[in-house]
């Protein structure tokens, strides 16, 4: 609650193009937003490039925030869109593999609890580009398949199949880690 009030105050300052408010906003949210960016790219340097471009967009296009939802959520979406743009600019395309039927494997989520954040992030960053974008958008950010399809310029079916394959890929890696540790 206290941070929300502070962010609202900073929003007013950033809207007035106040450099001090902009720096304060950056200091408040940079670390969390870098964590978001790191899930969409493979290296930390790339993630920081995305973070830099994202904050510049936030400050230069702050007028486009219409107050629908939280200011932090809007900044998060700006970061995600910037990451997707970078992803497209680099010539990467989502590898679309249409699946007739999507079947999830057995639920092995409990294994995840034993993993550190950094290990889990490393696995996500190892996902193929198309899988990683869809999995991040759907599983972590909560986008719908329709939104993902529009954002990545793919069909909804492709989004669903990418998600399923991403899950299976991750579960397979988790199994391998568990098997390695149990030996």
């Amino acid at each position, binding site marked *: 609650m206290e941070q929300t009030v502070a962010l609202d105050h900073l929003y007013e300052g950033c809207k007035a193009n106040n450099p001090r408010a*902009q720096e304060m906003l950056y200091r408040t949210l940079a*670390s*969390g937003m870098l964590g978001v960016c790191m899930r969409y790219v493979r290296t930390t340097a790339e993630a920081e490039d995305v973070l830099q471009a994202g904050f510049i967009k936030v400050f230069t296009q702050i007028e486009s925030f219409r107050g629908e939802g939280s200011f932090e959520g809007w900044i998060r979406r700006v970061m995600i869109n910037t990451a997707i743009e970078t992803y497209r600019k680099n010539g990467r395309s989502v590898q679309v593999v249409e699946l007739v039927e999507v079947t999830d494997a057995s639920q092995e*989520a409990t294994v995840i*609890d034993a993993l550190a954040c950094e290990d889990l992030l490393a696995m996500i960053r190892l996902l193929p580009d198309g899988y990683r974008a869809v999995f991040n958008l759907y*599983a972590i950010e*909560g986008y719908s398949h329709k939104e993902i399809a529009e954002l990545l310029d793919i069909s909804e079916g492709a989004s669903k199949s990418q998600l399923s394959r991403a*899950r299976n890929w991750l579960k397979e890696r988790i199994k391998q880690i568990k098997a390695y540790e149990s030996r």
Partner: protein
Amino acid sequence: MNPDDNPFDRHIRDKMKNFTPDVSAGLWDKIEAGLARQTPDRAAMSVRRRTVPVAWRWAAAAALLVGVLSYWASRPVPVIYLQGQAAAPVAETDTQPAGPVSASRPTRPAASGMPGRTPIARATPRKTRSEPIPAVAVPIPEAVTSEPVVKQMSTARPSPVAAPSSPRATPEAGSSGSDTSGVPDVQPPVVLDDTAAEMLASAPRSNPFGVSQLLNFVVGTVDRREEKAVLFSSDSEGSIKIEFNLARNRSRK
């Protein structure tokens, strides 16, 4: 949130929710530089934010103004003499026939580029300008001979209107013999021709901070030539006259 929230997804989301890695120290500087490139106003604001306070800037500006005005008031002014060589031997004057002053007086080339005019009032020191020398010949004692005059002229402060070589200046010098004893320490005789005397007498007592002087100073900072392209002068009625020297002494408007 998606309605079909998968437990696997939820576990990963919860795990990653509080992931806050460290950010590089110099990233904000890059963002600020990027913003400055996109918004010039911000660049100006950023510069302004890191400069000295407003009061100090006003104080510096005032000090600069005082310095410029002090320099203007006490600037070195080139002295232009009516005669080129003040130490001309008087003996020569003895042999010269008596005649008009203007014929025997060596005239200095017009420094201001204005033919027919000698820039007495403009280029002479301020003390001289404030007290114009009357256009009359100063009588000298009969004891004054040629040698002391030469000596005094060579050591004394050059007078802008000194005319030692004029026969009218020392009419008795040649006939008084060579007795140099008891010569009083007086300034050399000053004799002006009619034209110079009129100009000197009519020279306006120019205000060093007058508009024309200021304009001339501005022109002089740009045009370093001896002959300025534009020359401002003001008369006693306060009118400002502008003289153009576009063709360097050839044509004037």
